[in-house]
């Protein structure tokens, strides 16, 4: 006879570790629910112990009921790490997709606001420097196009490297006539652009008024 019944599979799974087609979890569920199946499971284990000559204690059959009754008044044990690991297996995208999307969109908008005007104004003026800009005093030569800024001299690479930690931009110097003139022109330019674009506040001002080397 080879016809398999559910009980055969459940007991084989729990006693012998040989789950049938239903699987191990189904067997545990079935034995947990069915008191008669649990009793057969218990006697099946005892038969194995006796056949192997292992010691047993006849009165121990009372234990499971006593332990179960005692546990009824105990708080249920939970293993926090198991629960955390169950959460950690969830893909990130399924945790809070709307919030993640919103955060990414906000980041892109912020980058566009901060970087966009610089790119636009730099492109329109055509003054984007092609050579790296460094602070004065590193053995480099002043650039006539960018007051206060210098162009790197490739022949003096070591000193340029040493100067790379210095601030990239020197501030406006109001004692320089060229700076004063340039600043006046930029302020006028800013007023015109601000009224035309409708933008107010720091961002349009920072985009328009600044050393030309940054635009």
């Amino acid at each position, binding site marked *: *006879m*080879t*016809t*398999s*019944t559910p*009980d*055969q*599979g459940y*007991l*084989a*799974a*729990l*006693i*012998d*570790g*040989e*789950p*049938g087609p239903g699987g*191990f*979890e189904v067997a*545990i569920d079935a*034995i*947990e629910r069915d008191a008669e199946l*649990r009793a*057969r*499971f*218990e*006697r*099946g*284990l*005892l*038969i*194995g*112990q*006796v*056949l*192997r000559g*292992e*010691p*047993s*204690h*006849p*009165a*121990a*059959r009372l*234990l*499971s009921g*006593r*332990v*179960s009754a*005692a*546990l009824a008044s*105990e708080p*249920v*044990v*939970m*293993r*926090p790490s*198991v*629960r955390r690991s169950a959460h950690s297996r969830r893909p990130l995208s399924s945790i809070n997709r709307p919030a993640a999307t919103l955060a990414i969109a906000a980041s892109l908008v912020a980058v566009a606001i901060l970087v966009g005007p610089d790119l636009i104004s730099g492109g329109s003026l055509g003054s984007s420097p092609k050579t790296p800009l460094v602070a004065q005093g590193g053995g480099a030569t002043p650039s006539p196009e960018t007051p206060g800024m210098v162009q790197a001299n490739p022949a003096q690479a070591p000193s340029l490297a040493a100067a790379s930690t210095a601030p990239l931009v020197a501030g406006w110097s109001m004692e320089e006539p060229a700076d004063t003139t340039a600043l006046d022109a930029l302020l006028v330019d800013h007023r015109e652009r601000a009224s035309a674009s409708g933008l107010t506040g720091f961002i349009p001002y920072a985009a328009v008024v600044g050393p030309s080397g940054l635009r």
Partner: protein
Amino acid sequence: MSEREVDQALVERAQAGDRRAFDLLVLKYQQRIAALIGRYLRDSAEVLDVTQEAFLKAYRALPGFRGESAFYTWIYRIAINTVKNYMVAQSRRPPGDDVDAELAEQMDMGAALRDSATPEREVLTDEIAHTVQAALDALPDDLRTAIMFREIDGMSYEEIATAMECPIGTVRSRIFRAREAIDKRLRPLLEG
């Protein structure tokens, strides 16, 4: 699936809050743990009390069990500590150095320990053994061979199927029927 894997699955269920999974672990090991504690204590009532306490301690400590050792090895250590503490509390001298839990597991459940079985307990244990043996002897050859391969030789269903030249489903059925036949004789004795 090894016995250890079965236990680990039950432990994980119990750790997730499934108390009935822990009940199954108690069912599975109550005889062995009680027999172990019975080597220290003669009185059956004491054996049951201390065994129960060991299982309760194990349940409370279950969140910290990480499966680095077999569940049985773990609860064996808890049981030994529980019975030793109990004997100290009762002003009785516990046995000196215990055999190592894993070593004891391999060496017939700590045979180095003193066996303090009472005559009544020995009678019942003998009666159970004789009943099981008589039922085994009465089995048809194919059933007896299958259950002995499994229980005594520890062979998997696949190995038994190969040895007996039959499908695994037949092995499963033979072992199940063999247990049912033995259980039919054993049940009145245990419930009587």
